């Protein structure tokens, strides 16, 4: 387990890097190191950010000795991650794949040479892993999507993708937590609120979580959406 590289990202961040590929076992190691560093609660550390294959630790360069922090990162990386402890909870996400919510279902179906019904079945038939969060608050990069529907992102991004839109691109799937521009193919929508910055736990997802999509119809979508409005 000595395959970790530690590189500088300026004088105020160190990056622990694992194999250069998008892979569950690599990502698990990155998240394990992030958790070990969080538990260590080191003075002067400002943020710990796991990504697909790396952990970036932000620190105050006047309070933290970079060489010592590098030793800690290497020590944390030398520990074999325990899969049972490391994978987060299974999060169930209702998705309505109605055409009104999935404007790109046809494009995906054409790419795969299958029907829209089969696209939905392929998307909802497996559990995904949250590799990392980024882009905007609460946006989870999840994988891996069935190769048959793993088409690249749109050539022209949309200026405004509605909040809750479930989308796919390049073997990944994700949900837009808020209305933003976006270049992924939109195939459905969830009524769940994914992010709320005034909650103690602002994001529904964390890196390492597993996610299962459940197809719901329009009536169930509306019902869940309404019920959420009454959650204090």
């Amino acid at each position: 387990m000595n395959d970790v590289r530690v590189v500088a990202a300026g004088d105020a961040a160190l990056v622990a890097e694992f194999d250069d590929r998008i892979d569950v076992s690599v990502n698990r190691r990155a998240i394990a190191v992030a958790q070990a560093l969080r538990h260590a609660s080191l003075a002067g550390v400002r943020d710990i950010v796991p990504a697909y294959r790396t952990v970036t630790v932000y620190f105050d360069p006047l309070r933290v000795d970079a060489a010592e922090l590098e030793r800690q990162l290497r020590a944390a990386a030398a520990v074999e991650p325990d899969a049972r402890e490391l994978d987060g909870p299974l999060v169930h996400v209702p998705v309505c794949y109605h055409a009104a919510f999935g404007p790109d279902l046809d494009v995906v179906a054409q790419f795969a040479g299958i029907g829209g019904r089969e696209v939905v079945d392929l998307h909802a038939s497996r559990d995904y892993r949250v590799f990392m969060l980024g882009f905007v608050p609460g946006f989870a990069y999840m994988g891996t999507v069935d190769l048959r529907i793993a088409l690249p992102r749109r050539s022209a991004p949309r200026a405004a993708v509605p909040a809750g839109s479930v989308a796919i691109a390049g073997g990944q799937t994700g949900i837009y937590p808020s209305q933003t521009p976006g270049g992924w193919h939109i195939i459905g929508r969830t009524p769940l609120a994914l992010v709320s910055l005034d909650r103690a736990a602002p994001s529904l997802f964390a890196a390492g979580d597993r996610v299962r999509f459940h197809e719901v119809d329009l009536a169930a979508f509306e019902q869940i959406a309404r019920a959420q409005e009454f959650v204090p």
Partner: protein
Amino acid sequence: MNGGLLILAPGLMTTVQDSGRWGRQSIGVSVSGPMDPFAHRLANALVGNARAAATLEVTLSGPAVRFDDPRVVAVAGAEFDLFLDDVPVPQARPMIVGAGAVLRFGARHRGARAYLAVSGGFDVPPVLGSRATHLPTATGGWQGRTLRRDDYVPLGPASPKRHRAPGHTSVTIDAGPSVVRVMAGPDVERFVPEALEALVSAPYHVSVESNRMGFRLEGPVLRHRVKADIPSDATPFGTLQVPGSGQPVLLMADRQTTGGYARLATVITADLGIAGQAAPGDALRFVVCNRAEALLALVRRERPLLALEGAPA
């Protein structure tokens, strides 16, 4: 009921900023905060505020504001003409203003961003522990946006302790192409070996397509070994991210937490404020340094600030 600040004229882009929304980048929450962290701290220190108190970041053209109770105020960073009740007043000095006083920013001479600190700090509701405005997600600050005419921004209770002794400004803005030191990496190995030489070979110009998220730079092309794309990864303040065009983007305060382009080099902490003072059309000249040089530069930059912050009021 504490006082507040009435915006008589907003200026081009005036936002509430503090030391940033740290600790939540793992769920995609941007840090935000001041583009010139040293000028922000200097302004706070001059009025006796804590380092993390919220100030107003003023961009290119400044506001006119009215106070409704007595306060100590100071402006640091970019050089503007300043008028207190139409009388010229100096920058980077604490000033006592009375109820009803009007502070107006006039012509700008150097730099792009100034910080207006007021004793007590701006008391907007914190979001995840920070009052910083993140414009792309309309988070924090005053209603998540730039200030407008007739906004009334509340102030915290002014500390009874007096302001600092007038200090000299410790934040210098170089004339001509500003020199910004970088450390190589984190993805220097994804570039051809000549890329770092190209980076330092000529100045880069800040394009008009620049904002608080990042500066698009125009200058020598930086070539990747294979491709520009990387698995999405963290993006510190001051990262030079290079898309396929070979023209770098310098990531600034409102940057996203992660990005998908290779990162050639990263501006050292000591020089973030120099980059933050650049306006569209300005030139930045990059110089590569090592960690020891970066630390020495930071100690030099911090020393006068720490002295001012630690000085008995």
